[in-house]
């Protein structure tokens, strides 16, 4: 036990002290910060300064247009196009917007002309189009004598609200699925990434000891199983430290960015690239939406999710890192053979991730997903994903039991391979031989 502690500590401290670890741990959130700053900087970038536009509204439909997003609209219906062109050449205006008359109220398309020697930036062009469309809509409403209040009640927003048959507990809403998808997706991805990355770190560490030949010295002091387990635990602790640091630092960064940039989040949303209908959502509605998502998030059983995630994480990590350790012990100095031996270990992880990503998103309760979330080689990735969709509790419990049992089994199995492989030098090893080692006394 004393030796195990020493091994775990060495594995942990030698990695955590490494420059690459410190940089990686600090730089990732810093990278996030830079990314945020760049995105914000780009989106609030006004797209090439102010634009003064003379508006030649030939049918006098629009009325005055307020300045908006760096575009100044100057009414110029009283002047001729030629006069205005001269004014553009003088530099009084940047361009002229000529708005022809609508043929009739049923006309659904209108071409507006922009006169200038300089090209109108696409973003500005979009702003101007939006403005004129709004104004034309107002014009049509007034011309047709429609009551605005009636107009507002025309649109009805529809949302499906899932209810339990017994009408009890857990009031789900339309956001449940979306929020579940996000939580499940993030957990599945983190799991996939961590298991693969730290599993391979364990493998490299085992190989390093073998090729360094320190392993025989170590074996004369500690049991092979102790060394392997110490390595798995030590590297696991490094992984947890890194994830924890990233979580804390990223949270700090997300909190700090608005402070540094002195940006009010509301404003941020409006100045975000005006793509799809984002700009159409009015602030109150956006806030309400945010509240509902927040409500949904707080409705999740975080205690249970955290508990299950931890168990699945540890289970998945133990299963795969012990398999990687076994494979690492079997490899000789020649890295070339690595692929053939690691493939059987990486394949299930990748498979679990793909099944979850493709089948899980479509239907988290399909037969395939139920199997995937129970099978211990897959469940560490698949079950945390399903957890967000409220699977039957017995499936979660069964999956937890299976993953813990499998972790114990695989660590034991890997120990049997490791103790033989680690002292085996100078020959290429096949999977068949590894299989035989398990049976050696």
């Amino acid at each position, binding site marked *: 036990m004393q030796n195990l502690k*020493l*091994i775990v500590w060495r594995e942990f401290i*030698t990695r955590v002290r490494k420059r690459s670890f410190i940089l990686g741990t600090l730089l990732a959130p810093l990278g996030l910060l830079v990314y945020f700053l760049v995105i914000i900087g780009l989106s609030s970038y006004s797209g090439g300064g102010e634009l003064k536009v003379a508006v030649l509204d030939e049918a006098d439909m629009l009325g005055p247009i307020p300045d908006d997003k760096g575009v100044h609209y100057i009414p110029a219906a009283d002047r001729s196009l030629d006069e205005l062109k001269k004014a553009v050449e003088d530099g009084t205006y940047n361009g002229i917007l000529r708005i022809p008359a609508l043929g009739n109220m049923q006309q659904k398309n209108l071409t507006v002309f922009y006169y200038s020697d300089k090209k109108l930036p696409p973003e500005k062009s979009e702003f101007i189009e939006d403005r004129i469309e709004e104004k034309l809509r107002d014009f049509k409403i007034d011309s047709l004598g429609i009551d605005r209040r009636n107009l507002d009640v025309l649109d009805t927003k529809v949302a499906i609200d899932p209810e339990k048959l017994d009408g009890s507990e857990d009031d789900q809403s339309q956001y449940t699925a979306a929020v579940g998808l996000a939580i499940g997706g993030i957990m599945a991805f983190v799991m996939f990434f961590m298991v693969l990355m730290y599993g391979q770190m364990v493998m490299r560490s085992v190989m390093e000891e073998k090729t360094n030949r*320190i392993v025989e010295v170590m*074996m004369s002091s500690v049991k092979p199983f102790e060394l392997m387990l110490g390595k798995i635990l030590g590297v696991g602790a490094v992984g947890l430290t890194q994830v924890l640091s990233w979580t804390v630092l990223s949270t700090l960064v997300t909190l700090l960015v608005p402070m540094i940039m002195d940006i009010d989040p509301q404003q941020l949303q409006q100045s975000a690239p005006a793509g799809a209908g984002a700009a159409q959502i009015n602030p109150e509605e956006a806030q309400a939406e945010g509240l509902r998502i927040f409500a949904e998030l707080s409705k999740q059983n975080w205690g249970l999710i955290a508990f299950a995630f931890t168990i699945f994480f540890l289970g998945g990590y133990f299963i795969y890192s012990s398999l990687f350790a076994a494979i690492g012990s079997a490899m000789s100095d020649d890295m070339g053979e690595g692929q053939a031996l690691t493939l059987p270990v990486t394949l299930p992880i990748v498979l679990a991730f793909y099944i979850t990503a493709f089948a899980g998103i479509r239907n988290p309760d399909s037969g395939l997903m139920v199997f995937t979330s129970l099978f211990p080689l897959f469940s560490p990735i698949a079950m945390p994903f399903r957890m967000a969709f409220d699977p039957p509790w017995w499936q979660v419990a069964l999956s937890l039991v299976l993953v813990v049992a499998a972790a114990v089994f695989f660590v034991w199995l890997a120990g049997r391979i490791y103790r033989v492989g680690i*002292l085996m030098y100078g020959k290429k090893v096949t999977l068949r031989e590894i299989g035989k080692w398990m049976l050696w006394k």
Partner: protein
Amino acid sequence: MNILRLEQVVKTYGSYRAVNDVTFDIPKGVVFGMLGPNGAGKTSLIRIITSITKADSGRIWLDGEPLNSQHPEQIGYMPEERGLYKKMKVGEQLTYLARLKGLTAAQARESLSYWFKRLDIVDWWEKKVDELSKGMQQKVQFVATVLHKPKLLILDEPFSGLDPINAQLIESEIRELARQGTSIIFSTHRMEQVEEMCRHVVLINKGQNVLEGEVKNIKAEFKQNHFLLDVDGELPADFAEHFAVVSRDEMGTVVHLPSGHGGNELLSWCIDRKITVRHFEELLPTFNEIFIRRVQETQ
């Protein structure tokens, strides 16, 4: 009293029998040679003694007790293939290895400062292993083997890859440890080294103990009554009528005497004839010869 006793030890890897029913004793406080060609099973035996692997069958006692999980702390083992953590600093690494052998941090520091001073490597403490030359690494490796004051020291080919200066240094350290009472197993395929260092040996071939005992007894047992004689001038022509000449070269003449006859007969024959003897010695077989003869006999 024996430091180690092996009784009918067997170890197989798959279908390959690496150690085949080996029995021998290692007396306390001696340098004990374990001889055998490459692949004879020496390393397999050592791994069993150091508890790295388990024997399939047979019994082993260390210092009178059946081998148990506390024993690795009392053994120091330097494998033939040396190995250290390349990226770790020397001091930190040796402290780690010492603590794995059951020393407390303070004991480790004390033992290390003794060895660092003794081998004159005090300023290496903060150096990383891969900054050291190969010879320097060998010294560190040696310290790693002895720093916990083992009762039994097992050195597998300790001189392989050592330059003459380091080889001599390590040799004198080994002798000093032996003098202080440490029992040492010296495993090698270089038979001539054994004759210089060991009082007892065991010969291993194909996983079996083919010969064991005290060096001088073995040599006596295998001696062929050959004598080397070198004289001033030529030996008289009738010499060959009295003695069986085995060979003749610039070193002298090798003579075989029938069993029951001693070297004095040869000497007195020379003195009687007023022949000046310049060099005379009984030729004892080298371990190489003994080994080859023994292997041929057993086959």
